[in-house]
């Protein structure tokens, strides 16, 4: 597996703060991987993404992106590879209309105008926002803003997409649409996804989950291994998956296997128990 991002011994303390937000953090992220970053409010997730995108500069440590150690000279190059969808979409909007806004990133890439128009239309169609092209992004509903922010990033076809809770205000169907879309693009375009989320179901789509606590990585593993922590997940502000919660209720009277089962596996178990009655 090829590393796309490599972080070594990273430290960061906000200027106004005494406590470090990121502490001696090391992490490798691989090409085409979907990595979930989870953890309590204030654990350092957004700070880490701002460091990766060069929006703030580490106190010490290094970040290597696509083989290049990031410094002040080459950060602009690196940033071209990264599309970041911020936690609050209002921080993202620069255009007076939705289409201008989505076009902004493409303009920066120097794309010819005709191609740009096509690309903007394509990206807006992907997130089902074509009808809102001429609206002021500030006048959109919360979920509509998130969709436009996502379109803006997809349009620039980055190699790495960082989603900082970017589906938190979408309705359940909309969330599924966006996640399926991102998954499809990852497979087709060799994209790497870093997704910060509090939604345990969203993490099921990823290959790996990293748990942050107090600026440090406390767990790093496959989703099933993380879910297997069961009620220990609460220590890190996380909840148990639905199937685990249901199993602990049923286990009072029925025999079920130990450890984590996916919902599908649990369903099969319950059907088996039912047919053996």
């Amino acid at each position, binding site marked *: 597996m090829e590393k796309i991002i490599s972080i070594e011994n990273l430290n960061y303390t906000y200027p106004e703060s005494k406590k470090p937000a990121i502490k001696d953090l090391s992490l490798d992220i691989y090409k085409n991987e979907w990595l979930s970053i989870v953890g309590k409010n204030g654990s350092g997730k957004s700070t880490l993404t701002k460091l990766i995108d060069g929006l703030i500069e580490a106190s010490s440590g290094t970040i290597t992106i696509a083989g290049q150690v990031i410094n002040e000279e080459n950060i602009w190059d690196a940033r071209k590879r990264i599309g970041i969808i911020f936690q609050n979409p209002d921080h993202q909007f620069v255009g007076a209309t939705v289409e201008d806004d989505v076009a902004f990133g493409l303009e920066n890439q120097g794309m010819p105008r005709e191609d740009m128009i096509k690309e903007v239309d394509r990206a807006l169609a992907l997130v089902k926002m074509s009808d809102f092209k001429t609206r002021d992004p500030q006048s959109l509903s919360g*979920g509509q803003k998130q969709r436009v922010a996502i379109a803006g990033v997809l349009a620039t076809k980055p190699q790495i997409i960082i989603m900082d809770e970017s589906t938190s205000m979408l309705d359940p169907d909309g969330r599924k649409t966006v996640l399926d879309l991102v998954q499809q693009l990852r497979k087709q375009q060799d994209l790497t996804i870093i997704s910060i989320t509090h939604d345990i179901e969203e993490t099921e789509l990823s290959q790996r989950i990293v748990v942050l606590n107090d600026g440090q990585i406390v767990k790093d593993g496959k989703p099933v291994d993380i879910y297997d922590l069961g009620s220990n997940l609460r220590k890190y502000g996380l909840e148990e998956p639905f199937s685990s919660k249901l199993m602990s209720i049923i286990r009072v009277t029925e025999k079920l296997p130990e450890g984590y089962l996916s919902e599908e596996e649990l369903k099969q178990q319950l059907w088996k128990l039912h047919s053996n009655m």
Partner: protein
Amino acid sequence: MEITFEHVTHSYEANSPTASLGLDDVSLTIKDKLFTAIVGQTGSGKSTLVRHINALLKPTSGKVIVGKRVITSETNNKNLKPLRKQVGMVFQFPESQLFEDTVEKDIMFGPMNFGATEEEARKAAHTMIKLVGLDESLLSKSPFDLSGGQMRRVAIAGVLASDPETVILDEPTAGLDPVGRLEIMNLFKDLQEKGKTIILITHNMDDVADYADEMAVIHSGKLIAQGPPKEVFNNQELLQDDVLTLPHSASFAKELQQKGFHFDKLPITINELGTEIKQQLNGD
């Protein structure tokens, strides 16, 4: 305080060619001292609806009755303070309601604006910050130097500090970690049990099932269903039309029905679901 919408229509940019209906002839009663959830797809009109309750928006036609107060297109912006004291609102994007240079001042603003002394307001700030699960040491920080979830909690603390009798929450748990979400939802339920009216906009159907007494479903600016969650989530028509998503437990139950299991009504909470599965496996 009972809140009633009578044929409320809200047109954004009413006099322009791009006018669009945010609300379309909505008639709805939100009962006093209950926990009411408002759900609906992205852009369906939920935020538009609740912004009428404290007159941030006014009906283009129709009227909104909040306790003794009537809000129509004619209502002017004077004299809204008593209404805003009674109806507190946590906005969808918390940053939009933070503005002071410290968290403490921010939480103190509401109570002082409504007549509390500085000392009372400071006391409220210290109580509230802990209630929303934050450390008191954050009081001296700038609210803009907080993480997303921390800001959200400060916004909630700020609204609760004025002790409004009706609390409107526009997706208040978006951005909270799951443990925090549970704590904050329990806090709202607690406030309701102590006599407040709670109105919650959410996309989390499990929270609706677990906490709400009543729910209203908004679709394309129209009210399309209202009732106790157990009934609304068992409304076949709504589900067929794909306008409503089921709580996790209900959709799991629905799948279990493919082989062997049977539910007269879909369970909507995990406890209901677990209990029913156990009963059915015990053959009674």
